[in-house]
């Protein structure tokens, strides 16, 4: 196995009854890469991601994440990945600092490490003034940035982001991508789903999913050449319309 391949997926399929949500997808993600996982709503992105992070059992196919098999070692995968869901999933009734402490705690970080991490993280996000405020009172953009940072608290090898910038203003989206780049520069692999096509341009490689299948996978530049399109938006429209 190539050590540089942190995600290896082969023929991964998920069926819900008769409905095939994810249809035999195959791809690889390299270490340190920002991998864009594109697709329309309902294309199967989130389902595919849930199999990779070990909270949904695949129907068939193979998948290896961070060196562990999704069938037999899901809990080992969880030690090595971070995840930020589509839905804001920190505790609204805990403060910024308490949320960081809690997640640091359940990832098994030492008290000292949690303290260092909290301070660094709060400073990086510029949340000093609201560190002891309830998270529920923060604007959505801040919550999303906090939630991203919390998903990185245990220095995972891979971070999975499910539509992290949904409903966020363009400025915050830009800041969010700066955070993503920062993490990638530190060697963290970023696996991100989105349906903002301008964001697709920021990725090293993108895959485009249509009706449960991966229809295209390459760098944004090559995809534009391949589909003779001006931008990723046109690539996406050509594919999605079939």
């Amino acid at each position: 196995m190539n050590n540089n391949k942190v995600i290896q997926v082969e023929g991964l399929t998920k069926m819900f009854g008769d409905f095939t949500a994810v249809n035999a997808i195959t791809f690889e993600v390299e270490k340190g890469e920002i991998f864009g996982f594109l697709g329309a709503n309902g294309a199967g992105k989130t389902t595919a991601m849930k199999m990779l992070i070990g909270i949904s059992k695949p129907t068939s196919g193979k998948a290896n994440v961070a060196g562990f098999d999704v069938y037999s070692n899901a809990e080992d995968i969880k030690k090595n990945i971070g995840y930020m869901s589509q839905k804001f999933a920190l505790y609204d009734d805990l403060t910024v600092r308490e949320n960081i402490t809690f997640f640091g705690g359940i990832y098994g970080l030492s008290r000292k490490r949690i303290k260092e991490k909290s301070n660094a993280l709060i400073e990086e996000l510029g949340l000093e003034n609201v560190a002891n405020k309830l998270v529920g009172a923060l604007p959505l953009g801040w919550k999303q940035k906090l939630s991203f940072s919390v998903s990185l608290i245990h220095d995972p090898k891979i971070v999975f982001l499910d539509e992290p910038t949904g409903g966020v203003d363009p400025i915050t989206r830009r800041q969010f991508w700066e955070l993503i780049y920062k993490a990638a520069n530190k060697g963290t692999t970023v696996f991100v789903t989105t349906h903002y096509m301008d964001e697709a341009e920021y990725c090293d490689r993108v895959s485009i999913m249509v009706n449960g299948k991966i229809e295209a996978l390459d760098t944004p530049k090559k995809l534009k050449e391949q589909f003779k399109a001006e931008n990723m938006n046109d690539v996406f429209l050509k594919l999605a319309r079939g």
Partner: protein
Amino acid sequence: MKTILYIIQKEFKQIFRNKGMLPIIFVLPLLQLVILSNAATFEVKNIKFGYIDNDHTSTSRALVEQFNASTYFNVLTDFPSVALASSAMLKGEVDVVLDIPQYFERDLQKEKHHSLGVTINAIDGAAAGVENVYVTQIIQRFNQQLKVDLFQISDKQVHPISIETIPLFWYNETLNYKTFMVPGILVLLVTMITLFLSGMNIVREKEIGTLEQINVTPIKKSQFIIGKLFPFWVIGMGLLTIGLIIAKIIFDVPMLGSLPLMYLYTSIYILVVLGIGLFISNFTDTQQQAMFIAWFFTVIFILMSGLFTPIESMPEWAQILTEFNPIKYFVEVMRMVMLKGSGFMDILPQLLKTLLYAVIMNGLAVWSYKKTN
């Protein structure tokens, strides 16, 4: 172990920050204890009594006077006819009607016996039974006096040998209803609060999406569940303590048995309830569903617990079902320990059954909580 502490810390913070829930957890149950213990009584008092006196003699008046003197019968209505008495009973204006026939006194003196008609509104069968006993007792007492008054000169051969029973009421000498109810109501509130809190807890995290975030962490299922249960266990024990203090101060309920024994049993009992709660939580998707299921079981458990109606009078199949009712054991143990002063060996069967129940329910709770779907 450290991971569990982080969860416990978080749960406590969330519980004490939830200003809407705090009064529900601590104030409502205690109000319930005070109100229900005073109100939920099976003593039949204030019976509306009516009579039809067709005799109008000193004997018939003396009989009515006996009822008048009783503290259980308070409204006395003299009905001129059976028809009027019947319509009054239909309207609910009277519970018991005594029909004294004509020539009651004359026949009694001549033939030494006579029958009386008693009609009781038996919509509430239990109350009717009690009323019947009261009526019979009063008439018997009246009978005793009559024997003395009417048959003073009768010879020794016909003198009736009366056998009298003197009841002794053990463990609750004064038949104080509250002494009987308070331990039971205490059981109810500890059960309801811990069941509802635990039943809605994990499903709440499902609803807000944080459970998924927890599921992608390497946390162990047992760590998560222990961390979740412990705060509610503490709340349950806290409620027991406050409840016992109220029972002692307000109701002066005797506490003959050992307090540590009550706490030991309760500490295991709460585990059963929490296990059931988490099990419900794992099988539901919304707090609403969890609440309905929790209510369903609570109502059955309460009505079949022997708290309000004796288990001995249930049909056999129902008695078998009560073996699976944790509230039944808790009610038994609380009454035994508080009122009878039962010791460890006396409650050992209940203790062991509860322990087994706790192991099974929590096993099921851990098993049914799936980090991977």
